[in-house]
């Protein structure tokens, strides 16, 4: 048996280089398996997320009929606050007109009078 001489650094590097160049590529079947797992995870996360994210406010919005209703409600609220705070002239004028004054309201009689029944006969 002859003496064996260990490989030199450069010889070993040549082997490493050959191995790096010959990196085995994943088969198309494996890539499909990996992609299918990714797709399944995306589906799982999509299913889990709404349940986890449905907070009190989201449930309230859903209860009143969704975002269009919520938007209408918000608009009405803002308008009400603005009217109450700014007291536009038209509203003030309307409130101060004769139609809504107390004295005039006293004179309005919407029900039929029973005075005629108190008469003779």
């Amino acid at each position, binding site marked *: 048996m002859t003496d064996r001489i260990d*490989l030199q650094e450069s010889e*070993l590097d040549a082997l490493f280089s050959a*191995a790096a160049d010959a990196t085995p590529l994943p088969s198309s079947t*494996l890539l499909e398996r*990996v*992609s299918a797992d990714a797709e399944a*995870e995306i589906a799982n*996360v999509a299913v889990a997320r709404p349940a986890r994210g449905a907070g009190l406010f989201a449930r309230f919005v859903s209860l009143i009929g969704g975002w269009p209703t919520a938007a209408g409600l918000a608009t009405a609220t803002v308008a009400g606050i603005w009217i109450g705070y700014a007291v536009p002239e038209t509203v003030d004028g309307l409130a101060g007109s004769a139609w809504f004054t107390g004295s005039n309201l006293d004179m309005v009689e919407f029900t039929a009078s029973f005075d005629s029944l108190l008469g003779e006969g």
Partner: protein
Amino acid sequence: MPFDALNEVSDEALLVAFGNGDRDAARALTLRLTPKVMGFSVRMLGDVAEAEDVTQDAMLRLWRVAPKWRQGEAKVTTWLYRVVMNLCTDRLRRKRGVALDAIEEPVDETPGVEAKMTAAERVRALEEALQVLPERQRQAVILRHIEGISNPEIAAVMDISTEAVESLTARGKRALSAALAGRREELGFGDD
């Protein structure tokens, strides 16, 4: 989004995008990372079918961790190599049922072969020699010299110091040189 547009995007950003349900990110990560995982697995296990199973398992773990992934905490490849390393270790231990760090004898000296080995045959010889290295040396040598990963990153993957990585790769290379000494003519290096 055009697929090419994702070539410049980091693994970390793609993983976060995948966690938010981005299918383009999933495709880009699959094509970018599966070959790396497969290459490392097959060299660690020396068996393509087993390496494919490990690759699928490691990528599945990556998909599952994505929604919780926070950019800046770790490199995706570091995390992934560590997962692959652990999966390979589990399989090797199950298969062998013995301590892997027991140093085995190098491959037997084979009779000289006249013809030079092709590159593929050189690769096969190296892979055979890698299989007889102690597991930690094999991991370090593959990651450093075949996968081309830096010593600090290997240290993070293996959870050891950079000095320990250097020591493992040096011992691994010495063992490989000795193991392949009897095949130098066969490998086309001549008989010095």
